[in-house]
């Protein structure tokens, strides 16, 4: 299993949606931490993403990171492989699932 802790591996203060808006964007996180695990379509390993320890997450960050991932690689592939962990804010998991499901709207 691939484990990613956003606060530890990326930043404890995530930014906005796009790289052009400023540092630590959802786009940056997706490109540098998530996409590489999906580019090889034969890869099936689970990716655990831990959201604890951060100051918070803008909706636009989450939507671009995970909704954007689903738009690129497909909802099914993303949902099958991602394991989302958030003990500090359990509702985040449901929120991100909605972004993945609604990614093609």
């Amino acid at each position, binding site marked *: 299993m691939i484990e990613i802790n956003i606060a530890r591996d990326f*930043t*404890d*203060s*995530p*930014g*906005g*949606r*796009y790289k052009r*808006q*400023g*540092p*630590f*964007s959802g786009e940056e996180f997706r490109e540098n931490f998530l996409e590489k695990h999906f580019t090889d379509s034969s890869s099936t390993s689970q990716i655990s993403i831990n959201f604890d320890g*951060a*100051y*918070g*997450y*803008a*909706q*636009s*960050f989450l*939507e671009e990171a995970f*909704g954007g991932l689903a738009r690129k690689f497909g909802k099914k592939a993303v949902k099958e492989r991602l394991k989302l962990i958030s003990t*500090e*804010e359990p509702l985040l998991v449901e929120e991100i699932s909605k*972004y993945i499901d*609604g*990614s093609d*709207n």
Partner: protein
Amino acid sequence: MKKLYTEEKFKIRSEKRAVSELRRRRRNRSKKAKPPSKHITIRRNLSKKRVRIKAPSVFSIVENIEETMAFFENLKRVSRRHRRVFIDLSRVTEITMDALLYLLSYFDYLSTNGIPHNFRGNLPVYDECKYLFLESGFLKYVKSSLEIPFKSKNVVQIQSSESVNPKIAKEVIDFVIRKLKTSRSTKTRSIYKILMEMMANTVEHAFIQVKPTSKWYLISWHRKKSNEIKFAFLDSGEGIPATVRKKISEKIVDFFTDFLAPESSRDSELIYSALKGQFRTRTKKGYRGRGLPTVYNLWQNKEISRLTIVSNQGYVNCEENENLEFPKVFTGTLFTWNFN
């Protein structure tokens, strides 16, 4: 003694001269300048050609929108015709940070657009207002002969940027935790979320066309009496009503409304609908446009209080369930809210 000085003629002449001198001194005394006032002037020499604009005694957009916006309208009108302006804050007895953010954004607008200007000003006489002004960090953004005051522990001074800045949001959250003696929680994460969304909105959505100034301004301060943190965030863009995509039917109504009922409450309604996320995103993409509904949801869930939004000609006070239209145009969007 010489005989001359004892003569009657000399004595009379001397007495007349003394009376005339006394009259002259009395005349000059009444014309003398009044004792120096107690307020601190940023520049001491007031040119006769400098136009003086007086701020209202309650200098606050959220508490006194009519008079404060009239002041700004007057400032804009005068500064279009006169380069040299004196902003008189001496009579201000109540001030809120939103007015300072808006004033600063106007200065930035002039600078960024290359509009010649030469502003001077003074501080409020009333001590509480004067210290609030000094604590705000306003003077960091202007030239001043005053020494920049020490950093206040009760205020996260005015921050401004053209990009999303997570570091500033982090600093604000740390300030909230310190002042309210709390720890990171769902509530503080909500504040972080709002700040990120507002910054992102300013940068991404606030313009119909690309503009030279695309800045946000943020200040937060601790109110000891109520032990709460107050926030003011200003987006210097076009404003919600001008930016969001209007429904085609409203476009038609607008067209006729301009002829029939120009006073109709449109801007405040547009602000409300944007808050409720009634698919008003300018980008026309369903997964976008969630920023403003986030703010509104937090207020509905009582994670923040006293949410007020001012944009273009609309004023929305969620707490008082008040939405008004006012004649002066507010450039951009102002959000204020409390957190405890």
